[in-house]
């Protein structure tokens, strides 16, 4: 009896300990490769695009060269049937957004003061477009786009926005920029924390700038006569059958149409605030990879916690600055301080590389070693790629003025000793430094703080 009691108590204690362990378990990240369907959901597509564009798309999907939808050879009548069904399933639109009076006018129709207000907004939108690094995924007309979009796997993202201005509905674009996952839970678009004023500026920029106009000036015609037919229930019934026959649900979510392939279970969203939520909400793994999962566009974060100091991470994700001037900058998501701390804590706690020491090996650093390091930095010509302070320096490698704030001392030493251990493609040459030299250089660099 006594034994049994003891057993119960120890079991209870064990369970409690296990409970603790669960709460401090490594966060489970979403699977970046799991995307149930290739195409966007069509259930509420009527809120998103204008009917003239949709009619044209259905009849000639390849009109846009980057389009991936095959040509189903729908006649105009069939396309109208399809549209009638899509219209019948669209949910009630939300309350209309209040726009300024000039919102429906073109630049030509505006009064002087309206024109000024519109230009101001478009300019502001262009600046936000740049800061948010939209061109990493999206290609557009004109000088900014077309190049970078090519690096992102087409299956992962990067809708060509060249025709956004003639395609998208103003109210939809406003809601989309505020929270894309509300319309399309599986989208790869991150949720930027834009202010309302930011969103309005972006809407004006996307709907008015030349970069988003179609290359050919031929615009789909608005035809109110045709749109009245879309409310015909017989058309909707025919459209539903045609959608089933054409197996549209292989690629699109459409309400009321039975699935053909079995769908992966959609997990309930992880509650905020947590790293699981943030990594999904910002879609970090589109560009970064963690433990072998994710994109290769941005640095691999698997061992980032052993390399980068926690305060620097928190600061960087809030206001990303260029680390390497010759490569891309991370988008600015307008994260809150709390969100930045969650990200930094996760990396600091879970993304460690066992190979990298925490401190510079070999005991306390002496001031003499720091001096030796400074001399070695000059005598070995490090400044041909790196700059430190106001002195002469190159831009191939990162600016090292405040490298002590960014990199952990142990990693500085490790990287100098084996520059290609973490990133085999790092341009940093392997000088085969002696332990002594590596210690001195790492010591010097770790004191470079601001």
């Amino acid at each position, binding site marked *: 009896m006594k034994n049994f009691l003891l057993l119960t108590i120890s079991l209870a204690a064990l369970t409690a300990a296990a409970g603790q362990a669960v709460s401090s378990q490594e966060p489970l990240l979403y699977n970046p490769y799991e995307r149930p369907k*290739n195409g966007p959901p069509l259930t509420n597509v009527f809120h998103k695009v204008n009917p003239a564009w949709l009619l044209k798309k259905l009849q000639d999907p390849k009109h846009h060269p980057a389009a*991936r*939808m*095959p*040509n*189903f050879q729908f006649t105009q009548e069939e396309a109208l049937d399809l549209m009638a069904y899509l219209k019948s399933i669209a949910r009630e639109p939300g309350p209309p957004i209040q726009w300024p009076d000039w919102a429906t006018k073109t630049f030509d129709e505006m009064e002087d003061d309206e024109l000024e207000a519109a230009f101001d907004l478009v300019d502001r939108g262009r600046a936000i477009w740049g800061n948010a690094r939209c061109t990493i995924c999206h290609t557009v007309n004109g000088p900014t786009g077309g190049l970078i979009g090519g690096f992102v796997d*087409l*299956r992962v993202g990067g809708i060509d926005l060249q025709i956004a201005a003639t395609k998208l509905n103003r109210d939809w674009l406003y809601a989309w920029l505020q929270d894309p996952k509300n319309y399309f839970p599986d989208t790869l678009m991150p949720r930027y924390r834009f202010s309302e004023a930011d969103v309005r500026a972006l809407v004006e920029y996307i709907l008015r700038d030349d970069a988003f106009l179609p290359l050919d000036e031929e615009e789909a015609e608005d035809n109110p006569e045709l749109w009245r037919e879309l409310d015909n229930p017989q058309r909707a019934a025919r459209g539903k*059958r*045609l959608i*089933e*026959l*054409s*197996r549209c649900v*292989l690629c699109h979510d459409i309400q009321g149409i*039975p699935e*053909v*392939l*079995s769908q992966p279970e959609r997990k309930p969203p992880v509650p905020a605030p947590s790293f699981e939520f943030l990594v999904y909400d910002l879609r970090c793994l589109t560009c970064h990879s963690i433990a072998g999962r994710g994109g290769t566009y941005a640095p691999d974060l698997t061992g980032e916690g052993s390399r980068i100091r926690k305060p620097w991470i928190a600061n960087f994700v809030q206001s990303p600055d260029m680390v390497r001037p010759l490569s891309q900058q991370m988008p600015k998501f307008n994260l809150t301080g709390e969100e930045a701390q969650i990200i930094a804590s996760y990396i600091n706690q879970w993304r460690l590389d066992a190979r990298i020491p925490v401190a510079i090996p070999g005991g306390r650093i002496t001031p003499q070693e720091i001096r030796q390091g400074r001399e070695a930095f000059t005598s070995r010509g490090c400044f041909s790629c790196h700059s430190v302070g106001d002195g002469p320096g190159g831009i191939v490698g990162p600016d090292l003025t405040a490298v002590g704030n960014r990199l952990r001392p142990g990693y500085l030493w490790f990287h100098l000793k084996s520059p290609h251990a973490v990133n085999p493609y790092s341009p940093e040459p392997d000088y085969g430094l002696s332990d002594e030299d590596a210690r001195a250089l790492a010591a010097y660099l770790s004191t470079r703080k601001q």
Partner: protein
Amino acid sequence: MRTDRRQILWLLALLLAALPLTAQERGREIYMKRCFWCHGEQGRGDGPAALGMLPRPRDFVRADYRIRSTPYRQLPTDEDLFRVISRGLPGTPMPGWETILTEEERWELVSYLQSLSPRFQREDQEPLTVPTGPASVERGKEIYRAARCFMCHGEGGRGDGGITTALNFQWGLPYWPRDFTRGWTFKGGHEPRDIYLRITGGLNGTPMGPYQDLLSDQERWDLAHYVATLDQEAEETSDDFVVVAAQIEGEIPEAPDAPEWQKAPAILVPLAGQVVLDPPSRWWTPTVGSLTVRALWNRRSVAFLLEWNDPTGPESGLADSVLLQFAAREGSKPYFLFGNSDEPVKVWQWHTGNSTEEWTATGSGQIESVSPSFQVNSSWTGGRWHVLFRGPLRSEPEFEMGEFVPVLFSVSDGANAEFGNTRALSTWLYTTLQRPHSLRPWLNALAGFLGVVVLQLWILLRLRA
């Protein structure tokens, strides 16, 4: 008392062990002997031989059975499973067991397979009824368009539809709809009744959903009859192993549909996976299973028209290619892989984009590139490649009337990441020039006959005189 009870238990256990095995247990024994190699110990489709198979063996635990006579998402009936075990699945590595296992043994296997998924305990099956009345192939053809069948299976039924290419190339999802022109690869049989069941109940776990609620019984029956008419390749070709080149007077036509080609008999050449030297292995999963060859010759040249079905054509990731390999010298039949030191071979090769290569080889390490002596024309229409080779008559090899030149064919499909030696290959066939049809033998015979008559008359006259 206590020992008595234990003895009774032992006795009971012995009795149970001595009882005959149930059908399911006997099925398990057969399974472990015959089926395990591909379908795996647990029935998960992961046996030791599964890796080299396309399509992969069925996972009996997931129980997504394709070939059924039941509605969509339902399990197959006992008879469905029995039929597949007996006849196998054409076009896949699954053989028929009719001649190896007794009927009783096959039923025992059915019972074991059903024990691998709990769904068989819970769910009932209601077999579909199949119409028997007349059907209209014409109406079926219209339905094939209206029901958008061509979006996956292609306008001519060769599996080259827009959804197929979009899934394969834009999304990297290799779904291969059935090529309707090759009826012998229909897994569930190519009779209208079989096709009707596939259309009605769909194929579980594939983009081929059911049409039970979308088309009427009659419409599906018409459609099944239309699809059955597309299965022509075997009918229009022969499986002879001599490619006889028909003689024509004028120029050899470049168009694959020119009427001259109808003079040449079409030979269907089966292809299988090629041996790969490095790493030593074999290409188990080629996507091109056969090609059709016709040949023509005139005074100066000999031409071979090679045609094969390829749903992706020039859009494939890598280039497609086809080659002809001839024995270079008379009277030899060299080693099939680039010949051997005594018996050289000549190779003509074409790649997508009409680049050509010609080699002389005396073994796989002894390949010499020479400037091509032949011309090619190629086109890809309706999910089918047509590649025409025209080469000189008097060169190496020398084509002569009455002589048989060994020839073999090989295709690589870029969409299946095939290149180099990773390709589909035929065995040695022969090609020969057809002797011209002329009246001369008849005229000679007639002249001979007349000569004899004249001679006899002359002798008779002489004798009388």
